[in-house]
């Protein structure tokens, strides 16, 4: 079940998404119109099914071009869709993504948020990341696949 938490930040409407995106995804029920700026925070999205992808694109492709649409803290499940579906971000800009790491010492999963512009500037070279246990965490995916949408 997807939880959507709307917040105001100046003129922007921030939508915090948490849970699974599926066939029930429909922001028109929550938002009768469009704000001048819409930031969609996707940190809490853990999975999205095929009809969820369809509903997502169906909604965001109708957002008028005058609306400043952006996606922040995109979870790996959302990043995967940016890589699989060319028009998944529609007219939006991807501001930041959650990059998955795994601790070499305790095997815990660690998520660090990176700005997309910084990743583009560094050609997706990642700085050393520490786990809360003190161990060194390594990037837990295939770089060419995970960062594919950034380089294209």
């Amino acid at each position, binding site marked *: 079940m997807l939880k959507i938490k709307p917040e105001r930040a100046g003129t922007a409407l921030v939508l915090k998404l948490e849970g699974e995106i599926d066939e029930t995804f429909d922001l028109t029920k929550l938002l009768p119109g469009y704000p001048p700026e819409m930031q969609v925070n996707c940190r809490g999205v853990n999975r999205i099914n095929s009809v969820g992808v369809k509903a997502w694109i169906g909604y965001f492709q109708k957002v008028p071009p005058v609306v400043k649409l952006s996606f922040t803290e995109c979870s790996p499940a959302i990043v995967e869709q940016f890589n699989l579906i*060319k028009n998944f971000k529609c007219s939006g800009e991807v501001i930041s993504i959650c990059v998955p790491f795994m601790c070499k010492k305790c095997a815990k999963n660690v998520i660090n948020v990176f700005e997309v512009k910084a990743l583009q500037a560094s050609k997706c070279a990642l700085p050393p990341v520490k786990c809360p246990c003190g161990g060194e965490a390594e990037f837990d995916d295939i770089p060419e696949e995970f960062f594919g949408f950034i380089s294209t």
Partner: protein
Amino acid sequence: MSGRIVLISERDDDRKFFAELASEAALEFHNPPILTDLKGMLQIFGNPGESFVFWATDVGTAADSIPRQEMAETLSKSIGSEFVFMVSDQPIYELDHLTQSFFYSHHLTRKFDAKLAVLLKRFFKAGEGNRWINLHDFLSEGAPQSQPLTLISSTHRKAACDAVQNVLSKRGVNPRISSLIAQGVDELLMNSIFDAPRKSDGKPYRNYVPRTDVFYLDDKERVTLEMGFTETHFTFSVTDQFGSLDRKIVQRFIKKDYSGTEYVVREDKSGAGLGVYGLIQTGVSLIYVVKPGVMTRAILYVPLVNSYKEYRSTFQFISFIFL
């Protein structure tokens, strides 16, 4: 076990892996010279059930230079497609000649390891007597298997997916992998609930129903979910009672490339047409077993790994077995 592995490849890594596999499975190993005459190959293949053929299908190699059409006919006349495994470096969706042909039943990527050997040995065993049907054929003896879960309402799908994710989380599976598998099971359940049902004239009657609709499944429409666990992998099977899966349609979805071409939302269709595409692109291995008019069983195979990176680095397997 009796029979043989026939390898059509000139690659040393192929020879090494399949010779060892044959030895472990107590099968003979043959690696005939490439471009031998097809009649000669027919003799090596023998009768149906005697050979498991592994054919390196990488574009531009010597094994690839064998005329495919002729070879396909030879294979279909001799051992049958269910004993033909295509092997390549690239995933299946990058190989047009495979997504457009049907003379083979299996494709695997060339990422050889002990887990792949275990899976192939299960195939050899299940292939004996041509009874490639049950989930437990892909499990070791005594491996834990869940009680079958029968879905009797369209609303049970979400609960079933959550149950899969919870089971995997309790077993300490990487959260990204458990989400991916739950999503995979969701896609298979949607296919079984909405796409599989057919009227007596063979026409589908649920594929235009919105995925949000709530309805009960009658006896024939009920869908079964099973889970099994071994020391090397997890398996999840989703079974419907229609046996209507069309391999051509599945392969058409597999070869789509929405990373290069925009996905167009079709309001006139209730499904998305993205389920199988997403599964295959994210490295999932799938085994389809179809008894036309009787049942389709989709088995999702997940190697037991420590990290997502390791998962993405392991082999990928897809099978179409028609009984």
